[in-house]
């Protein structure tokens, strides 16, 4: 019977054989005892198998869970360090550009390129000093503009000094008008007087007036002219700053 009972335990009997065994189990206590013993044997194998399986995985998991941080070889370390440094520099650069981008103003850029014009460069030692020249030399800029409007002789010198006086008084519109007057007169008369100066200060006047396209156009004209005295003052940085102001 033992063998048949094992087959019953394993579920290997036909339906009819199974019924027969079950009938016998119900009436034969010794057979039932034998079957219960077989169930315990099977359970011991199950318990052993389960314990073995968990034990095997336990070892693996202990290695995984307590795995030390892998040592990085020197080459990788150097690459990682370099990438970190590069990333740091990039961040700083982005921060610097961002800071400049958001704190840049037309006034700041104007001030970086502006230098007060000193009249001594105008004197040729032969001609007498006009009232506008005198007022400009004395830095009486409102009087310069007043004289320009009242007692007015329209020439390049008076237009240029009036333009500079207007710049000093932060009257961009007037400055733009007067520098443009110098350029217009120079187109009609020779020799050209104060032409380079007028172009440069006109570019600055456009810049402070936030006419960025006109400022850039004038700056390009100056840069493209190899004989322009102020050519070197139109730096790449200055052009970039004006472009940044335009994009904002």
């Amino acid at each position, binding site marked *: 019977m033992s063998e048949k009972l094992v087959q019953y335990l394993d579920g290997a009997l036909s339906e009819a054989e199974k019924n027969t065994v079950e009938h016998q189990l119900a009436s034969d206590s010794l057979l039932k005892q034998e079957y219960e013993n*077989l169930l315990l044997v099977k*359970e011991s*194998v199950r318990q*052993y198998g*389960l314990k073995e399986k968990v034990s095997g*995985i336990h070892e693996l998991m202990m290695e995984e869970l307590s795995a030390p941080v892998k040592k990085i070889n020197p080459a990788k370390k150097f690459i990682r360090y370099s990438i970190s440094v590069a990333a740091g520099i990039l961040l700083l650069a982005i921060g610097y550009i961002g800071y400049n981008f958001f704190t840049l103003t037309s006034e700041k850029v104007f001030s970086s390129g502006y230098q007060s014009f000193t009249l001594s460069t105008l004197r040729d030692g032969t001609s007498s000093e006009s009232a506008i020249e005198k007022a400009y030399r004395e830095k009486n800029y409102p009087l310069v503009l007043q004289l320009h409007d009242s007692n007015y002789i329209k020439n390049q010198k008076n237009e240029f000094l009036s333009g500079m006086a207007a710049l000093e008084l932060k009257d961009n519109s007037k400055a733009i008008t007067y520098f443009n007057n110098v350029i217009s007169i120079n187109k009609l008369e020779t020799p050209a007087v104060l032409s380079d100066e007028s172009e440069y200060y006109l570019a600055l006047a456009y810049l402070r007036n936030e006419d960025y396209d006109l400022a850039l156009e004038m700056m390009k004209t100056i840069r493209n002219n190899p004989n322009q005295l102020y050519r070197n003052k139109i730096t790449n940085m200055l052009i970039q700053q004006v472009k940044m102001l335009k994009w904002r």
Partner: protein
Amino acid sequence: MEVIKNFPDSELVANIRSGQKMNESIKAIYRAYYDSLSWYVINNSGSRQDAEDIFQEVVVAFIDLVQKNKFRGESTVKTFLFSLNRYSWLNELKRRNRALVREEKYEMGQDRLEMDAGAMIADREGKEEIVKLVSQLGETCRKILLLFYYENLSMKEILDNLHYENEQVVRNKKYKCLKQLEQLLDANPALKQTLKNLLNG
């Protein structure tokens, strides 16, 4: 590289119950709960080795209970494992009779879930005895019985694994091994009782 997978409770229990993806499921339990469960043991007078042993015991008990449909999902897997862990460790401490553990703390700490867990989990020594018993079999016998009764392989699959002449030879060998184990068990009535408890809960 192996994908580290976390199962939701329902999927984990279903996998264990069906015996599918057992390795992945056991690994998921380790990854999700080993740290916190071992922390409990270590912070209650246990060593790292104690924590490891108790965790293994807990995982074995959990799988066993799920496969016998005794985990019904009334609590989360996490809560259930914590209870098993707590019960197993306090039981172990009690067994060791450590003065460090105050009996009243232990009694007060027992909630309904722990009492249930206690009834479900067999004593540690008993389980160790089972392992010793099966280990007394020869390697071939152990292998055949494990493949058939634990891995649920068919005779044909076992034949492919062990390279016997035919299925009947394997069947005969398996029968002999079973009888051998039965005799070993007959000589150990206490272990029979442990197995009865495990089998019937």
